[in-house]
């Protein structure tokens, strides 16, 4: 049997996020690839033997099979092209698919690209398109859309654990203000490069209480790319590769209402039966209920196991996670098992998820500050991970303020729906870390 090969990220680039971008999809992807070619001069498109591309919605692109356009624009024909679509977890799933192709020996050098164009339709229509990724027979027709679903999920969390609007607002402020020195980020351009405060978030318009406009991420356009090489050829491209040490992928019910009694979670987390707050009516499966993202915990546990991680809080140096809503970042701290359930708020209050804390989260700006061109999101965050792990933040951003000192291990989290599909990846400067 053929050995599974180790796989590394050997380069990457980003075409900045804004809405609208006036470059077309292929041109945005080309800008991202061009940056990678300039920063990593040994990379050569002629040596790519496989292309994996991620974008979320044909509706947004106004173009079906849009993956074929950047593919031929980059001159990659007749090499193989695969589009991976998995909602908001599409880019993370694309990276996973590319990883599997390289690890298995099907490819030695795979280019992974991602883009989204969410500005060609009105914002109302854009939210409707995203809502079409919820159940269109039962959840969407009653006036549901994603902000409403996430609001209902954090409302239960508030009821169970006392999480507050201030707790969430602190996350929005952290991420948006960290994005100010990121020249690829959307929020600074939209907000005239000004910082915001917790009061600004609390004062912003209600979209679906408890979520207000500044609790929500952005609609975005932009693109990014990473290059994945097998251990056989990594040395040709860079002396500073970043290795995949762990990967996980999991799913949950599409309708949040189907989760509280879901037999798929029966017995998986035995401690949760007694830990459920006694003032609340306990569903058959108290975890995740609709207050947490069960698929995140499953994907993270698989990734931790593969990477030999037993204490993620101590062993992982920074996190790039999917803060589509600031509420979801707090829930995700818990689902990544960085704290006990219900204690996500403590991490932000203690400052642990700031750049100088124990577990910096989304110092790129995350989806709230950096932006969320869906098909690009986790690929762009992987580029940020690459820069963090190779100490390049000072060079690539306007300052080195968000460089995590001595970062060796990072986690990238790619999340879809209401936590319906979840990809987690762990990236490591070392090829074979012995903990």
């Amino acid at each position: 049997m053929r050995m599974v090969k180790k796989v590394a990220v050997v380069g990457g680039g980003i075409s900045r996020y804004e809405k609208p971008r006036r470059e077309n999809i292929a041109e945005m992807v080309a800008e991202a690839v061009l940056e990678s070619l300039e920063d990593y001069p040994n990379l050569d498109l002629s040596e790519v033997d496989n292309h994996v591309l991620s974008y979320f919605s044909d509706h947004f692109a106004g173009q079906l099979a849009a993956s074929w356009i950047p593919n031929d624009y980059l001159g990659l024909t007749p090499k193989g092209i695969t589009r991976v679509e998995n909602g908001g977890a599409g880019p993370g799933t694309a990276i996973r698919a590319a990883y599997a192709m390289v690890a298995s020996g099907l490819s030695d050098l795979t280019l992974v690209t991602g883009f989204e164009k969410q500005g060609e339709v009105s914002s109302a229509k854009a939210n409707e398109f995203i809502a079409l990724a919820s159940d269109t027979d039962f959840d969407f027709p009653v006036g549901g859309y994603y902000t409403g679903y996430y609001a209902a999920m954090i409302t239960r969390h508030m009821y169970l654990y006392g999480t507050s609007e201030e707790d969430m607002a602190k996350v929005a402020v952290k991420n948006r203000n960290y994005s100010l020195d990121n020249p690829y980020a959307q929020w600074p351009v939209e907000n005239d490069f000004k910082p915001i405060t917790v009061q600004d978030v609390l004062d912003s318009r209600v979209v679906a209480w408890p979520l207000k406009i500044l609790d929500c991420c952005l609609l975005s356009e932009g693109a990014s790319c990473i290059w994945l090489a097998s251990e056989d050829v990594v040395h040709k491209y860079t002396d500073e590769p970043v290795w995949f040490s762990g990967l996980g992928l999991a799913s949950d019910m599409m309708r949040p209402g189907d989760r509280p009694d879901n037999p798929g979670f029966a017995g998986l987390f035995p401690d949760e039966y007694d830990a459920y707050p006694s003032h609340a009516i306990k569903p058959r499966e108290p975890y995740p209920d609709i207050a947490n993202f069960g698929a995140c915990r499953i994907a993270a546990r698989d990734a931790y196991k593969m990477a030999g991680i037993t204490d993620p809080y101590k062993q992982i140096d920074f996190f790039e996670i999917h803060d589509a809503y600031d509420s979801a970042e707090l829930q995700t701290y818990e689902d990544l098992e960085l704290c006990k359930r219900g204690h996500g708020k403590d991490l932000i209050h203690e400052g642990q998820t700031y750049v100088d804390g124990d577990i910096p989260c989304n110092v790129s700006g995350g989806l709230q500050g950096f932006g969320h061109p869906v098909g690009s999101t986790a690929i762009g965050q992987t580029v940020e991970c690459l820069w963090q792990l190779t100490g390049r933040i000072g060079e690539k951003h306007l300052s080195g303020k968000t460089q995590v000192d001595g970062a060796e291990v990072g986690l990238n989290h790619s999340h879809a729906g209401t936590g319906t599909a979840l990809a987690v990846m762990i990236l490591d400067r070392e090829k074979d870390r012995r903990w």
Partner: protein
Amino acid sequence: MSEDRIIKEKKPDPKWKDWGRLGKWEVAGWRIIERDEGQRSDQLAPRTYMVIDRPWDVMYTHSYGRVSQFFMGLLEKKLMGTKCPKCGDVFCPPRAHCWRFECKLTETEWIEMPMEGTLHSYAIMGFGGEAFLDQLPFILAYVRVDGANTMIAGRLAGIRPEDVECDTRVKIKFIDEPTGNPMDIYFEMDGVPEHSKPEEQKARIREKLKPIEEWVAERKASG
């Protein structure tokens, strides 16, 4: 923020704004613009683009499949669910086959559901699709109909939004003229909620909803 500076323009016929559904991908209007663009926000330079308006839409003729009976039930003001004859799990929203591995996709059986349930969680909607704007702020609720192992989404009426709390009892009601859509049912708070928020939090929510209520009132007044 970067913005488009119009150099030349042909405005689309205003009908396209509302009649997008009739669109056939034609170029209805266009603008030649200049905009500061670039790969990084610290490297922007003016470039010229042509931006077009291209309307397109579609009608989906959709089958509710084997759970059609749920929607047919709505037309008769009956709330229908399904039950697995093997394990007894009850589904509302319905499933035509059981979700347990050990039941091996056993076909479920139709049952009529009681018109009562428990509010599991909710959101107070302050914005929404065009069809819902005049109803703002409304409460999007997930309710476990008594006996069900799934929860159904709908609107909760008969209570000020700030007074709502999880785990309270609700009645399930039908609108007067059902159309075969989950909007045919809604939930109504059954008496005083068993749980409530602190008064200070309620006051804050009330304050936050005021501008939305005023906006909707103005919208309705102006037709």
